[in-house]
């Protein structure tokens, strides 16, 4: 086993600075560091560690513990090295008799109010207080409570006479993942500062003064659960003692080995250290050298990994002839030959194009590549699609048409240079929390944010964040709003003409300018339609155009509309006309939903494109694969997911291999999806759990978690991150091996020994990946594509010297109202989204303690709409559209505007998608999840449909006891 060598992981004490070089001497060693660097960090750079307790290099120096004092020639006293910046010619002594004595004295005071239970303490061996006591040579603690004077400490519950100690407070175990033990707290404030500076939630504070100072979550009556805490883990990470400690460490002990890997939740793609004993995972710790997350995490990646060991995991392959039958557990050989025989039989009966695959945006690039290869080489058709169809396919089309590539233009570090961020149809604090923390940090430094969203999301107003403008548009009017912004910029002459003339097609811009200048696109003309006050919209457009570096971040609130692709085009137009492309701090930034949405698209999952976004109609591209795979590649586009389901209902699509996606829960119009699946004769589900789709499956192949395999994920910044196997696959095979076994059962003759060989094939066939290899990833940690001869180190920023397509292209964006309209029967608009603690269909997060935060989907409804319907907080309500109905509980809140209701789709008992329609984006068929006309009425509980669904699901999940 070869583990990635973790580079220098030391805590340097204070953050790195950039500035002119400054030279100084520390303990006789010469060291040169950037101006603004602390003496503490300069010493660390020279390899000299100064004792510290309150300093950590992911937050600003605080100077409270006084353990890091030093002597500086020519200066009086003993300054704290963390708060003292370096100066040219400075001579520092870190180990004089005087400072050593001070440190021992400080340490003695700390320890006088700290229990000496190190051997049984959960932080034993992983405690900075312990380390520092050792480092300063503390040998004695002289302080004790005076005779008969009562206890003067925080750590003993009772004194020797049994009297309660009023200073003592019990452990707060309210959070499911970590405990807060005030008796071990040294009040260094690292947790409070981490909550503020790293996470940006401001849930923690220090209450009281002097000896009474205590860390407090929320107000004095709160515990961690009732406070604003979002359980990101930054405080636990920052705590130098056992005060804030993972429950898993308390239970399992401190981990002995660690492997750097990549989170399998959202598209931020945070790097983590998986810390283990043997193959037992003890905790996931954000990796400070991870370039997406820079040492930060959210509740999902940090804590919600328990699903990997959940009892619901299916570990044996299962088959059945009919979905009404119970499952039969069988061996791998039997399951694979059963599947292969069925699939080949379907092709013989119904034709070559009667079967297909769905690749997973949660699986690795290598696994995705193999699944599309299975379709193209072994099935001999292009019937491959991925869940990106239902999220970011309009990004592919819109950015491809305007800029020349579907790629997001920036890296996440770029936000540190942004002056005005526009967030459209995205809710980063819930769906991309670590990016949100980085954005909020920039906002606290003075950058502005414009939020364009029907809901008052947290970025509109929360602790130390207030949007400069919130444009609460009516769902479905994105194009009108974006075009009105362009109208304002063009008619007020705020565009960057020099940039447009140099970088874009000027004639196309002139046509476009004429189009947007038409008064019908003015904010005043569209106000009635969009619900956005014209003055606000104009002010927002002016700020974006003139406020410095402008960056647009957007999510599925942009794409999941019948005009999703048009809005993406409009966003690209805005970026180009203001010159906000091609340098740090700007750009067009799609926030991808799942961990490997980017990668699954890159790997040729779409039915019209081979890997690297090359259309199947191009003979030169087909030839590359025909030569390598020895088969003819179909030159016709294949079926997209909605088309597969239509064809299935119609009887011409009969077999599906679906890896790591749950289309029955995640795709729109549940009844139609169910009808499509029910019409198929062979559905192969390859997953961790018996998901909803598996209710209609004939073959179940057990999947492996991200902990159980090697591979790569590509995040929203095009960063290819390594996923590293930290334990053996519980079912016996990694997912790439299972796909290979299936291919070989159908005559594929594949012989990959390791995912690195799959990446080598990707690199050999895909120009934008030609420089990528596992060796390169070991060396660099990660790399952003394109990575090839022209960009051997990858490409953090796109379109730096020119657009990928040559000249940037402005495209006219005419607003077209969706056909999904409100009326007397369905007067409200439903829009859907995610919540922080849950992820997508919830298959993973519902099987963790994250359910404490969100154990059911609820319907957000405005107080006005609730009142006229007689709906109160917590009532069961029926939510009905022309497609279907379901029941759930109401949450009455003015976060949504009157006329708009909102829910999540994390729970199959609710099945929000039984409501959503089959309307879709004009260019890509991406479903219009974000706009459905609905009615809400009081109800007594689940609807008939929900009860029928639950009964069918229970029947479909029966498993026969294994044959002896």
């Amino acid at each position, binding site marked *: 086993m070869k583990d990635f060598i973790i580079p220098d992981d030391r805590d340097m004490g204070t953050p790195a600075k950039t500035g002119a070089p400054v030279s100084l001497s520390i303990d006789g060693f010469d060291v040169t560091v950037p101006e603004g660097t602390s003496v503490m960090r300069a010493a660390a750079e020279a390899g000299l560690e100064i004792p510290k307790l309150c300093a950590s290099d992911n937050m600003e120096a605080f100077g409270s513990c006084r353990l890091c004092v030093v002597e500086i020639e020519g200066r009086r006293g003993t300054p704290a090295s963390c708060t003292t910046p370096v100066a040219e010619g400075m001579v520092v002594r870190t180990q004089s008799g005087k400072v050593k004595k001070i440190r021992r004295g400080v340490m003695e005071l700390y320890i006088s109010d700290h229990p000496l239970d190190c051997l049984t303490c959960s932080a034993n061996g992983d405690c900075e207080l312990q380390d520092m006591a050792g480092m300063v040579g503390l040998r004695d603690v002289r302080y004790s409570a005076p005779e008969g004077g009562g206890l003067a400490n925080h750590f003993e519950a009772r004194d020797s006479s049994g009297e309660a100690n009023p200073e003592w407070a019990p452990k707060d175990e309210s959070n499911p993942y970590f405990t807060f033990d005030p008796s071990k707290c040294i009040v260094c404030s690292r947790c409070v500062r981490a909550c503020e500076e790293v996470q940006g939630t401001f849930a923690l504070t220090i209450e009281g003064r002097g000896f009474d100072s205590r860390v407090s979550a929320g107000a004095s009556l709160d515990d961690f659960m009732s406070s604003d805490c979002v359980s990101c883990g930054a405080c636990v990470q920052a705590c130098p003692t056992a005060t804030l400690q993972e429950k898993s460490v308390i239970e399992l002990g401190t981990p002995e080995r660690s492997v750097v890997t990549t989170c399998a939740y959202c598209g931020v793609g945070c790097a983590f250290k998986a810390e283990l004993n043997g193959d037992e995972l003890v905790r996931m710790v954000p990796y400070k050298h991870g370039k997406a997350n820079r040492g930060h995490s959210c509740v999902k990646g940090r804590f919600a990994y328990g699903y990997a060991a959940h009892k619901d995991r299916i570990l044996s392959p299962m088959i059945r002839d009919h979905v009404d039958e119970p499952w039969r557990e069988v061996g791998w050989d039997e399951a694979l030959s059963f599947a292969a025989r069925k699939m080949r039989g379907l092709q013989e009966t119904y034709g070559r*194009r009667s079967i297909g695959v769905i690749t997973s945006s949660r699986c690795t690039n290598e696994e995705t590549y193999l699944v599309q290869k299975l379709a193209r080489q072994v099935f001999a058709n292009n*019937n491959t699609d991925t869940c990106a169809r239902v999220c970011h396919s309009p990004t592919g089309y819109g950015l491809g048409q305007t800029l020349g590539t579907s790629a997001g233009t920036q890296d996440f570090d770029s936000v540190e240079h942004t002056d005005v961020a526009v967030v459209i149809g995205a809710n980063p604090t819930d769906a991309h929390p670590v990016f949100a923390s980085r954005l909020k940090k920039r906002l606290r430094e003075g950058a502005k944010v414009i939020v364009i969203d029907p809901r008052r999301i947290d970025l509109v107003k929360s602790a130390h964040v207030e949007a400069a403008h919130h444009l609460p548009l009516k769902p479905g009017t994105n194009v009108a709003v974006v075009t009105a912004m362009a109208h304002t910029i063009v008619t007020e002459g705020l565009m960057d003409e020099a940039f447009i003339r140099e970088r874009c097609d000027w004639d196309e811009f002139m*046509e476009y300018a004429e*189009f947007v200048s038409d008064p019908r696109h003015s904010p005043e003309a569209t106000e009635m339609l969009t619900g956005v006050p014209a003055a606000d919209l104009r002010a927002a457009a002016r700020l974006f155009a003139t406020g410095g570096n402008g960056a647009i971040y957007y999510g599925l609130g942009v794409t999941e509309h*019948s005009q999703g692709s*048009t809005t993406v085009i409009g966003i690209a137009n805005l970026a180009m006309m203001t010159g906000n492309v091609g340098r740090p701090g700007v750009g067009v930034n799609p926030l991808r939903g799942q961990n490997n949405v980017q990668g699954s698209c890159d790997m040729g999952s779409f*039915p*019209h494109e081979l890997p690297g976004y090359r*259309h199947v*109609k191009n003979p030169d591209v087909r030839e590359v694969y025909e030569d390598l795979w020895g088969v003819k590649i179909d030159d*016709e*586009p*294949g*079926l*997209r997911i909605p*088309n597969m389901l*239509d*064809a299935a209902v*119609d009887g*011409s699509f009969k077999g599906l291999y679906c890896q790591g996606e749950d289309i029955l829960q995640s795709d729109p119009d549940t009844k139609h999806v169910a009808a499509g699946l029910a019409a198929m004769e062979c559905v192969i589900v390859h997953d961790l759990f018996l998901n909803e789709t598996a209710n209609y499956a004939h073959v179940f192949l057990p999947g492996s978690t991200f902990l159980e395999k090697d591979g790569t994920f590509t995040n929203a910044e095009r960063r290819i991150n390594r996923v590293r196997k930290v334990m053996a696959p519980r079912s016996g095979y990694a997912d790439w091996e299972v796909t290979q076994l299936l291919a070989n059962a159908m005559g594929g003759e594949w012989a990959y020994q390791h995912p690195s060989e799959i990446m080598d094939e990707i690199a050999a066939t895909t120009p934008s990946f030609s420089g990528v290899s596992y060796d390169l990833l070991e060396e660099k940690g990660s790399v952003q594509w394109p990575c090839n001869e022209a960009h051997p180190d990858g490409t953090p920023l796109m379109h730096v010297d020119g657009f990928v397509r040559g000249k940037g292209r402005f*495209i*006219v*964006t*005419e607003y*077209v109202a969706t*056909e999904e309209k409100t009326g007397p029967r369905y007067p409200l608009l439903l829009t859907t989204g995610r919540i922080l603690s849950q992820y997508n269909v919830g298959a993973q997060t519902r099987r963790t303690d994250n359910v404490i935060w969100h154990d059911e989907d609820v319907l957000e409804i405005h107080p006005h709409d609730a009142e006229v319907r007689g709906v109160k907080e917590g009532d069961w309500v029926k939510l009905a559209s022309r497609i279907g109905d379901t029941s759930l509980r109401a949450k009455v809140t003015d976060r949504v505007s009157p006329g708009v209701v909102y829910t999540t789709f994390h729970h199959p008992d609710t099945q929000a998608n039984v409501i959503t329609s*089959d*309307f*879709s984006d*004009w*260019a*890509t*068929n991406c479903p219009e999840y974000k706009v459905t006309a609905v009615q809400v009425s009081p109800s007594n509980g689940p609807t008939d449909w929900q009860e029928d669904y639950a009964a069918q699901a229970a029947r479909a999940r029966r498993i026969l006891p294994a044959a002896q």
Partner: protein
Amino acid sequence: MMSPEKMIRMANQIATFFHSQPSEAQADRVADHINDFWEPRMRRQLLDHIAQGGEGLDPLVLDAAQKLRTPV
């Protein structure tokens, strides 16, 4: 394949977009889009519908018909 209403709606959505474009070759671009993204079964259904008069289709889709690749 698709319900006729759905097919007509999808084709018309594409036509609506290209109507708005200041191109002289709008029908070509509708045809290109459908050729690039519609699987042969879908094009077959569309062509069959056009052969039967193309009721409900945007005239631009009808204009694009000759440029649609016939599925084999």
